[in-house]
């Protein structure tokens, strides 16, 4: 039977296993919305407050569940509002499909109402983008978008559908879920070389990035760490790659990494790097990164090999296969001296955790941590609070952290938390700052309309904390535009949005507020007042190394 483009679009989305999409209606997607209306019982649409929120929600949905998140927007401003969300997902290799409506093909390029070059705009911020030129190719294009989003190194894919294509009719025959293209198997001769390097190592580190999460390699990574008797260090994207309470887990290294993690990297003789891309924030001065170590670099994307770090052994291909192969072939190792040495660094860092009477960031994170379940989603925005979460939160399960790593998108958190809560149905906590929250707090409306079990914990210091920290350390305390001097009352604001608003100025109030918030299954905002002079330490200055580390 002949069906219209929008019917085919909705059928194809359902066929691809999509149950929830995040979006915002507009002139060039009204036909699609009409089809969503008719299919309400088969696919649900979540109306966000802004298209950027929809893109971040699709991203959070994907990060938390591993499924392909989907967002929908109209042409022109709808499409441009998606761009930050697409760039965020692209920087962190998150599989997503964005659908945009466009003006009818005969109007494209004529500067008609809400006409913008969506396709052109999307090129540098997506893995790929398609413009559908005939209704006959629509279904296959949408399927290809899903296949591409999840295959190889994942990423966001955009499908732009002009209005006339949405209306045109053609035959549609349903297909199954587009399977991902099988990942290339790594060369086993190279893996055998890796085995030899591991056997010769006395001080090994397993260094994990987002690829471990994307490739569902958390379990095998833990086994590898145990079998090699290595310590595990991660980039921010790899924070949930292993149970953080595991004795071999050292946490994040890099600019704001934990002391023991950075120290272990600088003293190890072997780095087994898995799905990590050695960004500037993670390595600091690359000449001084892991100066005593050989590096084995495992990554699905061979373009990452040699891009930032020239590893001794570069192994492209399926990460899960590579890690499983190495783990199964390896004889269990023991490195008691290395163990003792690194544990001594670990113990030293305990000093930085000491309380001193105020409501301090680490106390807030610990208090949430106490009440959270292993599957509780933790979303963050970007800045000091994000680093504190990365340093102090104890993650138990992969995919429980939603944070913008590569792009560092302030305002990411609200949308991402909504997406994560919807994908998993689990309690979700967003740690944010008063600066970041100010960027996209409009999505509180979405959390309320969806009645999500979402707790927004604002680490409110009245300043743009990370900006202030850099001005403090590198710009002689010239606090230009980092003092917010706002009078926003976040408790009243929460109330105005229909959420519950609470305030905590000390630990007792915080504990009461969190007890109340965790008991509720609806959105709660907790305004936590923290001192503005609190900086994130340790800190390795940009392009620095362990020699330049600032501890306090």
């Amino acid at each position, binding site marked *: 039977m002949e069906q219209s483009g929008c019917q085919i679009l909705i059928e194809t989305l359902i066929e691809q296993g999509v149950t929830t999409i995040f979006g915002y209606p507009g002139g060039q997607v009204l036909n699609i919305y009409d089809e969503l209306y008719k299919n309400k019982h088969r696919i649900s649409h979540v109306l966000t407050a802004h298209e950027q929120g929809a893109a971040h929600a699709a991203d959070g949905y994907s990060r938390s569940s591993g499924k392909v998140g989907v967002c929908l927007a109209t042409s022109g401003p709808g499409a441009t509002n998606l761009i930050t969300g697409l760039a965020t997902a692209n920087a962190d290799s998150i599989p997503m499909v964005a659908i945009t409506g466009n003006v009818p093909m005969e109007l494209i390029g004529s500067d008609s109402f809400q006409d913008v070059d969506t396709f052109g705009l999307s090129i540098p911020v997506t893995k790929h983008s398609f413009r559908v*030129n005939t209704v006959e190719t629509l279904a296959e294009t949408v399927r290809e978008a899903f296949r591409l989003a999840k295959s190889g190194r994942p990423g966001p894919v955009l499908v732009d559908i002009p209005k006339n294509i949405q209306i045109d009719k053609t035959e549609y025959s349903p297909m199954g879920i587009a399977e991902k293209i099988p990942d290339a198997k790594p060369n086993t001769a190279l893996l055998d070389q890796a085995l030899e390097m591991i056997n010769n190592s006395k001080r090994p580190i397993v260094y994990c990035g987002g690829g471990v999460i994307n490739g569902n390699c958390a379990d095998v990574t833990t086994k590898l760490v145990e079998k090699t008797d290595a310590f595990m260090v991660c980039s921010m994207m790899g924070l949930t790659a292993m149970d953080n309470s595991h004795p071999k887990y050292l946490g994040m290294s890099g600019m704001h990494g934990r002391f023991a993690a950075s120290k272990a990297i600088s003293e190890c003789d072997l780095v087994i790097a898995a799905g990590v891309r050695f960004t500037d924030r993670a390595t600091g001065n690359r000449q001084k990164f892991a100066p005593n170590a050989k590096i084995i670099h495992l990554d699905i994307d*061979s373009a990452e090999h040699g891009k930032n770090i020239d590893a001794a052994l570069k192994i492209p291909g399926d990460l899960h296969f590579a890690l499983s192969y190495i783990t199964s072939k390896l004889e269990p190792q023991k490195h008691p001296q290395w163990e003792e040495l690194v544990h001594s660094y670990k113990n030293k860092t305990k000093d930085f955790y000491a309380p001193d009477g105020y409501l301090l960031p680490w106390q807030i994170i610990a208090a949430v941590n106490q009440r959270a379940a292993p599957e509780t989603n933790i979303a963050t925005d970007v800045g000091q609070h994000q680093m504190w979460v990365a340093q102090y939160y104890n993650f138990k399960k992969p995919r429980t952290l939603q944070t913008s790593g590569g792009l560092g998108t302030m305002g990411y958190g609200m949308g991402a938390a909504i997406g994560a809560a919807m994908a998993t149905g689990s309690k979700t906590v967003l740690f944010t700052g008063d600066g970041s929250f100010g960027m996209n707090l409009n999505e509180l409306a979405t959390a309320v309309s969806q009645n999500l079990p979402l707790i927004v914990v604002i680490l409110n210091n009245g300043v743009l904390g990370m900006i202030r920290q850099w001005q403090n350390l590198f710009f002689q305390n010239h606090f230009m535009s980092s003092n917010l001097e706002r009078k926003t009352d976040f408790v009243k604001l929460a109330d105005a949005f229909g959420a519950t608003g609470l305030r905590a100025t000390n630990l007792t109030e915080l504990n009461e507020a969190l007890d109340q918030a965790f008991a509720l299954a609806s959105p709660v905002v907790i305004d936590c007042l923290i001192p503005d002079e609190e900086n994130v330490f340790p800190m390795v200055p940009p392009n620095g190394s362990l020699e330049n580390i600032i501890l306090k």
Partner: protein
Amino acid sequence: MSNDINQQFAVSIIVSNQSGTLTRISSLFSQRNFNIDSFTCGVTNNPEVSRMTITATGDVNKKEQLLKQITKLYDVKKVELMTCENTILRELLIAKVNAKGESLQTILDAANVFRSKVVDMSPESVCIEMTGESSKLNAFLTYIAPYGILEYCRTGLIAVERGSKCLYGVK
């Protein structure tokens, strides 16, 4: 040879013949901060694909990254670095040169020596068409510069490997 010496290199790329492909390739260059020296694109014997030849300058790492990043693009079917020893490299030049007075004969002699064609003449100017490797075109332009080049236009390099091996088989 050291890895950080900048060298010019030519890359041949087969891409699917779709709107937007050209934008995507050129966008990659600005996105990754690669400089393009020349860029040509044209149809091939297979209507489904186009062939591009890009010349760029960079060190070994830059070259390797460029090749890998291009290879990753969805529309790209085949990428190959063209080695100087085994490649036919050609560029087309049309130069309009001042031919007033006595300079005309000198220019015509030079055109002859460089095996180029005179394709247009006016009382004041002469147009010369020349194909060859870029260095030959450069040498010609340097020689005639003192006589006054009014304008010139170059196509950028195209490149094909010698022998019967093809970059992309016909479907």
